[in-house]
């Protein structure tokens, strides 16, 4: 009589190596950690500096100080008036916008992917074992708060309008009439890319049309959804590009404001 053997135990293949990948899977996390650390260090230093954020002659205001609502803000830089008294920059002058811009980027679906992989190593790369013994993802506090991304998006739309207003001011010459220089063009490029990044957001894609069940019954929203989807496919590139343009814009204005360089004027 044939002996029927026991069914094999239901266990996974026992492979001790963390990963058997032979490519440079560690490269992307290292690059992300390096670039984000550089950017965050620069931004932190700048928002607490309290100097060289406005060029009165050409009306250049760095986005890191917009809207400038502290009593310390130099004349002409406060679009929305002074909300807090003149105190040293323990509180960033543009705290009212920075907290939402930071929240928007922190909860952004692309940045989440980037920092979960690079900083938290969860996972560091695909098919590479993560170092954590337990994982609950975004099911609990504080990471369940990532679901608030959409509300940051709403506020950032308003902030983008403010940034656009700042750019319009930068197209005024010293006499108050139309005029522009290299700084105006850098600010313009920055704000266009900021709009592209903001509108390419996954929440924006959901709001414009993604939440619908019937595209065919909402042709205008469907059209808008296709355009946002096109931008959305470039969300990662826009996320990085705007970090670069924000830094470049601030750096240029800082150099002009401090007198280190002169603005290259094209007209007036």
């Amino acid at each position: 009589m044939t002996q029927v053997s026991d069914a094999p135990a239901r266990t996974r293949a026992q492979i001790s190596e963390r990963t058997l990948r032979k490519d440079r899977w560690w490269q992307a996390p290292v690059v992300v950690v390096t670039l984000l650390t550089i950017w965050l260090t620069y931004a932190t230093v700048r928002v607490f500096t309290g100097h060289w954020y406005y060029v009165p002659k050409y009306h250049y205001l760095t986005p890191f100080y917009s809207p400038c609502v502290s009593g310390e803000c130099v004349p002409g830089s406060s679009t929305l008036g002074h909300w807090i008294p003149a105190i040293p920059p323990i509180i960033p002058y543009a705290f009212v916008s920075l907290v939402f811009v930071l929240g928007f980027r922190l909860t952004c679906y692309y940045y989440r992917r980037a920092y979960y992989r690079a900083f938290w190593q969860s996972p560091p790369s695909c098919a590479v074992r993560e170092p954590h013994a337990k994982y609950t993802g975004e099911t609990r506090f504080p990471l369940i708060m990532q679901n608030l991304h959409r509300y940051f998006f709403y506020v950032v739309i308003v902030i983008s309008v403010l940034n656009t207003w700042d750019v319009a001011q930068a197209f005024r010459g010293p006499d108050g009439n139309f005029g522009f220089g290299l700084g105006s063009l850098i600010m313009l490029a920055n704000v266009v890319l900021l709009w592209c990044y903001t509108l390419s957001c996954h929440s924006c894609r959901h709001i414009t049309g993604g939440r619908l069940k019937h595209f065919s019954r909402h042709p205008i929203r469907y059209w808008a959804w296709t355009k946002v989807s096109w931008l959305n496919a470039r969300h990662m590139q826009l996320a990085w590009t705007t970090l670069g343009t924000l830094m470049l814009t601030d750096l240029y204005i800082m150099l002009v404001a401090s007198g280190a360089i002169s603005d290259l004027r094209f007209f007036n």
Partner: protein
Amino acid sequence: MGYMAALKVWRGDAGSGALTDYKVEVNEGEVVLDVLHRLQATQAGDLALRWNCKAGKCGSCSMEINGRPRLGCMTRMSTFDPADTLTITPMRTFPVIRDLVTDVSFNYAKARSIPSFTPDPSIKPGEFRMQQEDVNRSQEFRKCIECYLCQNTCHVIRDHAENEAPFAGPRFLMRVAELEMHPCDEADRRDIAQDDFGLGYCNITKCCTEVCPEHIKITDNALIPLKERVAGHKYDPLVWLGSKISRRPAKAGTPAVPGKR
């Protein structure tokens, strides 16, 4: 021109196993599955591997090649340096039956737990009409060949087997998303997506998208849109306030998950 490739193939069963060295002939134009078949025919007649169509459409020959979840039939040998040793292992997330064959029944159990298509009962078979723009979204997800490479690579269950119960994995969250977006599906699946299928476990690191041999944008087109729908339903303060003052009553029709409610 052919050459002799050095292979390390994981051999064993659920109890134990190890990487075994082989030297196998490789000819121009071959894929990894061809080489494994030659290994089986010439040196290791008892090598177990699952395959069927050899065309990237049946999803049977899922394995890990040099640590990367791939289809054996869609991985060209010409993409590797002939001097390198190729390491071939079974999918790590699933229990191994023998050699490269794994038990993927976890996925079938998850598939069965998803409440099926729930149309308006007043619409009779043959009366459904859908426009192409409505069909497109679901059609992308229907390209899935159920190779389960996405399930295999998802760290939520790959690195944390304890999450197999609460988390359905990207393939089945994509199925939930497909039904949730379907114009003729009447069920509200947002609660069960979060509570029963573990959408919150997904931290959108996109590995499922990276390994998908059908290039389905699982994360961008299924998981994130589903997360947004859940966020609007469960975490929207205005919706919550509206439901409290009865201005926006909760939508009826959340289907039950078999065995859970």
